[in-house]
């Protein structure tokens, strides 16, 4: 059983009291417990079971504008006492920083909405095994599939965030996820692809047959890929890759990157950065949302933000420290975006595939080729060549490159948005990128 609110609250207040007693002027504590149970299957047989029970605490102590922090998984009172004393001593000799402080009291979350993020259902390992059996059975029907690996994970968490200004709140959340990785082989190549599902509630996950079927089909489609010639080409990003570009955008508008001056989007508020059909929203209060939160990691209430409005940048993701530096109020985004998404475009997917008579549909990228300081982008990619709206053949061992400043202005979105992750995008078309191949 995960630890209840009472236990977590008692630990948190023990730490806050102790920090005050040592001489801290302010303090903040997060205590969390998370229990996760997973079962792994490989080629239709049980491969691994894993149970994890993690308890953790992190404490920040302030002496005026001085601050330092400690964290530990050992919650014995005796150990906490040693650590808090150490933290206080460290704080004393840490230099002043005028921007260090707890968040302003008036923006702390007051009401905790019920976002339905916790499902008390428990799936015994035997039931998880049944799910995975059915999944792998379906995934391996085609002879070309030579290996399948799948996992079912159930996770339950609870936490309390408390600070010396009287904030003390937390809530339970759960997730149920299943994934399948398939390997297919033919005379020319061996390829891998995957499919997964993850939801707060057990009843909302994709049924095993569909998951296995999709994983298998996506993998087989990739067999016998070709390398294409280097050149300029329009790129269509599958939804699972398009969301990555949105995550990069979120990192570039985080107040820390802006305050440090290390973002290509610094000083771009009220400037047009996307084409004028593009809207980006960050909405923390989606019921059962994978990125939903009642308050951010400092306890600040978070409201919905329209980050990009018809192509214009409207807001950064602001926390207390960097907000003070930038003379902005925290908008409850310490810890980043919540449920971040592009609003639907007005093109359907068939039309998107036909915008250009020859384009490259990307289903996977590898490498960390994103430079947020300059906006330069260059990654390894796999996908399909699309001609006149038709998928022609799989492509791999190529790279695609561009710069976000231009790429963002050339985005056209389809109208197929789904909420599967905490960051979501419709299928995305970007005109005129560079592919390096043969």
């Amino acid at each position, binding site marked *: 059983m995960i630890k209840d609110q009472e236990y977590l609250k008692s630990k948190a207040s023990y730490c806050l009291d102790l920090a005050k007693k040592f001489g801290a002027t302010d303090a903040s504590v997060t205590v969390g417990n998370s229990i996760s149970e997973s079962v792994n299957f490989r080629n239709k047989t049980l491969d691994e079971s*894993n149970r994890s*029970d993690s308890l953790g605490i992190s404490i920040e102590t302030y002496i005026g504008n001085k601050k330092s922090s400690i964290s530990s998984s050992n919650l014995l009172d005796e150990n906490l006492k040693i*650590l808090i004393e150490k933290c206080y001593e*460290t704080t004393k000799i840490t230099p002043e920083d005028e921007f260090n402080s707890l968040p302003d009291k008036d923006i702390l979350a007051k009401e905790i909405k019920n976002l339905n993020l916790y499902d008390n259902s428990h799936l015994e390992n035997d039931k998880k095994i049944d799910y995975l059996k059915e999944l792998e059975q379906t995934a391996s029907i085609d002879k070309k599939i030579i290996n399948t690996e799948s996992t079912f994970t159930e996770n339950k968490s609870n936490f309390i965030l408390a600070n010396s200004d009287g904030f003390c709140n937390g809530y339970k959340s759960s997730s149920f996820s299943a994934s399948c990785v398939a390997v297919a082989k033919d005379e020319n190549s061996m390829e891998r692809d995957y499919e997964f599902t993850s939801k707060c509630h057990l009843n909302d996950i994709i049924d095993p047959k569909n998951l296995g079927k999709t994983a298998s089909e996506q993998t087989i489609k990739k067999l016998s890929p070709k390398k294409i010639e280097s050149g300029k080409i329009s790129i269509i990003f599958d939804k699972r890759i398009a969301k990555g570009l949105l995550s990069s955008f979120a990192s570039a508008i985080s107040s820390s990157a802006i305050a440090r001056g290390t973002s290509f989007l610094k000083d771009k508020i009220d400037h047009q950065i996307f084409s004028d059909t593009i809207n980006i929203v960050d909405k923390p209060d989606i019921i059962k949302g994978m990125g939903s939160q009642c308050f951010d990691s400092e306890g600040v209430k978070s409201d919905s933000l329209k980050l990009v409005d018809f192509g214009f940048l409207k807001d950064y993701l602001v926390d207390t420290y960097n907000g003070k530096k930038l003379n902005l109020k925290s908008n409850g985004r310490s810890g980043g975006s919540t449920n971040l998404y592009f609003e639907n475009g007005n093109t359907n997917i068939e039309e998107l595939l036909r915008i250009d008579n020859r384009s490259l549909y990307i289903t996977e990228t590898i490498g960390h080729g994103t430079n947020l300081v300059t906006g330069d982008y260059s990654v390894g990619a796999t996908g399909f060549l699309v001609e006149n709206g038709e998928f022609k053949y799989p492509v791999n061992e190529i790279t695609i*490159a561009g710069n976000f400043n231009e790429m963002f202005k050339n985005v056209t979105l389809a109208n197929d948005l789904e909420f599967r992750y905490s960051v979501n995008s419709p299928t995305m078309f970007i005109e005129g990128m560079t592919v390096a191949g043969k």
Partner: protein
Amino acid sequence: MSKFFDKSDLTRKDVENIVSETLNNCDDGELYLEEAKSESILLDDNKIKSSNYSSDIGFGFRAISDEVVAYSHSNEISKDSLKNSSANLKSTLKSSKGTYNHEIPKTNNKFYDDINPIEQKSLDEKLEVLNKVNNYLRKKESNVKQVTASFSGEQKSIEIIRSSGEALTDIRPLIRFNVSVMLEKNGRKETGVYGIGGRQSYDAYLKNDNWKKVCEEALRIASVNLDSKPAPAGEMKVVLGPGWPAILIHEAIGHGLEGDFNRKKTSAFHDLMGQKVASEGVTIIDDGTIDKRRGSLTIDDEGTPTERTVLIENGILKNFMQDRLNARLMNTKSTGSGRRENYKHIVLPRMRNTMMLNGNHSQDEMIKSVDKGIFAVSFGGGQVDITSGKFVFNCTEAYEINNGKIGSPIKGATLIGDGPSILKEVSMVGNDMMMDPGIGTCGKAGQGVPVGVAQPSILIDKMTVGGTKL
């Protein structure tokens, strides 16, 4: 003897009993205990941005029957918690009847000292070095717009208790010192990053004002990039510099030679044992025994002493890297490559220090032989798709080569290649082998472990460079 049970309601005898009773009918398994103390101190934007200390303790209990692994971990070292884990393992392995009890070889070697690097340098001294770095860089160059410098240090104590009651222990120090600098000139911003580290005290790396060298290197890389032109796009010859660029070997070859992917036949290398996978003259080893290196371990996380494993000898594939599970299932022995990020994770076969050994060419010779290509000196991260064999890595410092001469610096670009064939494209191996500066972390299945790489300069005849200039 370690002190894991001192503050619990368990005696060592209780623990031994629970372990042996749980693993009684299993093929393998162990109780792994870990205590980690770590710190990180960060200077950023002219200020000490954070100083964090963390102390973590926990156990991971593993039982293996045939191919099935059951694992349970907790950070509560108590009778209840251990018994819960034991029950959980037994419920997964309902009908186990194992026999394997491959003995663990003994070792008297130690590749690092039993020190706690965090306590060997006071916080005041660490803060002073960070401030010196900041002032030094900002004074030295007027277009320095941002400086980030950090210390991270750790001491990890582990104990492995096997079903026989046998206990193996290790104390592992690890430190890293990092500097990143951003320059701005005519509206253009570029960063340079450099770091050093390994399994010794901070001062072993920072003596003689060594921090200045780290600053200069970060600054040099940033300045080079300020003048960089767009990188070319397409297939061309690539000369790799010595040292850190060996992450190419780590990504392209290393992961594909880890035992698990080969037992499961999902690696592009699984059916190539004994075959020629690289040009003649190419020898690659994975070595856990180099004194005080970041990737070195006295014993791995299953208790097996590490070794120098020859992976590819003169072009021929000789060995995979193995942990106990995959070794047993492939009828071979562990190479001391069983590693885990911490007690929360299962053991996987992993790399330690992966190195290509010297050949007899000079870097000069390589560059002179290239009409059109690039010279790559430093890299950021890399990644590989084990199954298709395709791998990438990102240049952070690279130059054009035109008619045998090094030309202008080029912007960061991704290089992509095919693991099983790339080493056949190596046409010259240099005589200037160098270790990396001790900063690598390898990620696999969500677990990061410290690793090292080394290589001499090499010439690759054909690779795809992912720039924007056609």
